[in-house]
């Protein structure tokens, strides 16, 4: 990935620190003194205020531990201290700590928390009433200027159900109506009054793009118009992406020139700022794309404009080009078995995930569903067993990477979470049994070492404002 330094980064002030060397004429300012001062753009205007809940020093012992990087320990132990993983092993030296809580997890399994890199919780919340459809700014095919976090309702009960399914982090994406749907955001799955208090600290922003049927349906012949606007075809889709990338390239050139030479700064353009963020490697591209042939063309387009695709989403046909995806280093975020609901999903096979894995490409299990997100471990289990039946031998320990480390990589947060490695965030799930079973459930979920969910303790089960005082409040979910 090409990485141009934007050099505007650091400043926290909003903008318009007056520019000393400004010139009304724009363009050449060689006659003016350049004092080096530049307007800076705040790249983090809605900063994370997340602080972990209180945690203790916790030793989980006696469990089958999947470390999330392909390792499995029988009778293993995980030590959590100061919110981080302090040690993982079969013999752990206990810290001298009076407050140490020991959890006997004999017969249970311990894994890294599941990370769903495709969720619309909060932007398409429950109940799905008309007032709640905040996930898609379908007013135009290019809306790179909108940010999913501005549509998130923190009181979506779906967050709590996902938590009970062992989800510790997730990416909330805009929908897929648009060619450029806007920015996605990565959250820690903690209850919060504000979106900012859920934002994963220092996670890079992401950009949602979409291939195929959705954009051309929504714009080309949406709302009964015939013809509607562009794009009307897959040709129009690609022309739309390329036009926007060309504009972003031009905008970046102006920004770079301004940084280099001073003069009038280019007018702010929220749409192009997002795209420039991609070109500079700060923002990761997550692209809804089902068909193999379309993914292959997108890879060429990305190379042409100098960015890379972090992950294709849904990627129902990744199994047909898994070798190309491995070569390009693009992840595929997939369902275990969804198919057929539209033409571009018609060629779905149950072995997609293991076939992608077997080709050496990055495989991710994603949900795109407030129901599916509650049992992504079972989705991995289905894919694993279907792969094994056709001779793709993958261990459960390796398969867990589909659920934590690989999605963490696709979101740029794998340095801090996604596996049970000393020093990483203690995002940990204790399962009642083998999580590749229909019958196992997440019993305890730790986020940054704090016990955020306990199936056996109603006091440790968050209840959203929406459900408070309603039938079903605090019931088994």
């Amino acid at each position, binding site marked *: 990935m090409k990485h141009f330094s934007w050099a505007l980064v650091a400043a926290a002030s909003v903008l318009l620190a007056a520019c000393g060397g400004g010139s009304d004429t724009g363009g050449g300012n060689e006659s003016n003194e350049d004092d080096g001062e530049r307007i800076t753009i705040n790249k983090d205007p809605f900063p994370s205020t997340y602080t972990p809940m209180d945690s203790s020093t916790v030793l989980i012992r006696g469990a089958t531990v999947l470390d999330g990087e392909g390792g499995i320990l029988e009778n293993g132990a995980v030590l959590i201290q100061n919110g981080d993983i302090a040690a993982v092993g079969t013999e752990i030296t206990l810290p001298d700590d009076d407050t140490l809580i020991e959890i006997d997890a004999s017969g249970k399994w311990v894994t890294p928390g599941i990370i769903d890199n495709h969720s619309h919780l909060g932007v398409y919340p429950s109940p799905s009433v008309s007032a709640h459809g905040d996930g898609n700014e379908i007013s135009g095919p290019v809306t790179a200027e909108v940010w999913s976090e501005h549509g998130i309702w923190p009181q979506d009960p779906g967050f709590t159900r996902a938590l009970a399914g062992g989800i510790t982090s997730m990416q909330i994406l805009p929908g897929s109506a648009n060619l450029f749907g806007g920015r996605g955001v990565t959250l820690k799955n903690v209850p919060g009054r504000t979106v900012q208090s859920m934002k994963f600290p220092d996670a890079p922003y992401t950009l949602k793009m979409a291939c195929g049927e959705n954009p051309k349906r929504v714009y080309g012949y949406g709302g009964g118009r015939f013809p509607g606007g562009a794009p009307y075809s897959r040709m129009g889709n690609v022309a739309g992406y390329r036009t926007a990338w060309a504009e972003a390239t031009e905008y970046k050139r102006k920004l770079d020139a301004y940084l280099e030479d001073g003069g009038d700064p280019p007018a702010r353009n929220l749409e192009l700022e997002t795209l420039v963020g991609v070109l500079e490697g700060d923002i990761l591209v997550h692209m809804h794309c089902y068909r193999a042939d379309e993914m292959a063309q997108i890879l060429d387009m990305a190379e042409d404009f100098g960015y890379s695709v972090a992950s294709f989403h849904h990627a129902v046909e990744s199994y*047909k080009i898994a070798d190309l995806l491995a070569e390009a280093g693009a992840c595929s975020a997939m369902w275990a078995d969804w198919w057929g609901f539209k033409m571009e999903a018609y060629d779905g096979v149950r072995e997609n995930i293991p076939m992608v894995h077997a080709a050496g490409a990055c495989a991710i299990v994603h949900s795109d569903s407030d129901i599916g997100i509650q049992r992504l471990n079972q989705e991995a289990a289905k894919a694993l067993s279907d792969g094994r039946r056709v001779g793709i031998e993958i261990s459960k320990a390796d398969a867990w990477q589909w659920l934590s480390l690989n999605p963490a990589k696709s979101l740029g947060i794998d340095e801090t979470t996604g596996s049970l490695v000393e020093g990483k965030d203690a995002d940990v799930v204790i399962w009642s049994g083998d999580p590749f079973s229909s019958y196992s459930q997440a019993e305890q979920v730790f986020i940054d070492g704090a016990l955020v969910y306990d199936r056996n303790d109603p006091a440790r089960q968050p209840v959203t404002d929406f459900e408070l005082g309603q039938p079903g409040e605090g019931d088994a979910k």
Partner: protein
Amino acid sequence: MRLSTLTSLIAGALAFTGAATAQTVAITNAKAWTGTAQGTVDNATVIIVDGEIAEVRTSENGLPPEAEIIDAEGGWVTPGIISPFSRTGLVEVSAEDSTNDTSAGGSDYSIALKAADGFNPMATTVPVTRLEGVTRIVVAPRSGGDIFAGRGFVADTSTSQDSIIDDDAFVFVRLGEGGAGSAGGSRPAAWARLRAALSDARTFPARFLAHNEGDALTRVDAQAFGPAARGQQLILVEAHRASDLKRIIEFSLEAPQLNISIVGGDEAWMVAEDLADARIPVIVDPFQNLPASFEQLAATAENAKRLIEAGVITSFAHLGDDSHQARLVLQSAGNAVANGVTHDDALAAITVVPALIFGLEGVGTIEPGAVADVVVWDGDPLEVMSAPSHVFIAGQPQSMESRQTRLRDRYLGLESGDVPFAFKRSE
């Protein structure tokens, strides 16, 4: 056109050949879940003769000499799974209207719409569903803008052109929020329409001698509603909110001749005792635990458990993608077990119970004389990592191929693509 005619002729011929061959099969070394008082039989041998279960025994001695032997290797054997609510076979690609016969918003008719008229037994969804052990599907029309969606049917998943078992099995009605929306905007409007329609049907044809139209129904719809209105056909009602379910219970007590079952029922646990007393069966989706709407606020993963413990006749369906993913009914049942339902009750909820609700005689159990819908599993059928190794429908061994397995096989081992993949059609 000619090609498709030829294809169906071939399929018909194959089906005919299959049916004409008397087959004896002995499945040995099985853990047979029978769905009867016999319970689960270890070390069982299940003998199938001429499409029916002949015997379940614990000895392998004296097997019929002509029997084809299938060693289950200690694995589970169950009755064929029944999906009690689906749109399988009515639609090929959901978003493509030309391939989708689930609903007809532009039709002049409602109850007269017979979903069976749109069934394609060779739709790709059918073998995909069968491969997961589902041998019978209950198929409902989708509402096109009326509380009455039409009439549903029951089929097997053999892909035979003769696979419809009951082509006129039930009338499907939506109440609750969906019904309110299609009846003019309120629940009272939906109920008014239902009561008026019943009156039209009960007075058919007399009242139509003087008028061409009933209060609610056309002549054709009123005639179609007749059997259900007289209690001779099941009325399957979709509703969720406890108060809606309570109204349905009261309605059924006022009109005890009606044969009513409920599908959905996310808040059914709140009126479980009443449902049990009224003997109204409920088909629930065990995944549903979110307040997806204001009529599902009390949805809980323990709905199924509480209904069964209260004595309600309870079946499970996957109501998510009900055309392409009806196969997930097994995962639903496994999750119901995780949330407190016994393994026996969960298996019954997708075999014995739907057979009871839809009056499918001889289906849903493994016992002498039963239709030999039998599935051999490589593990516990309710475990997500298990799958069928053999599927029999009425004694006939079924193909374990689908379009999906063909696509998979084409692309397994990408490195072998020294010729274009389009030339790769078999191993």
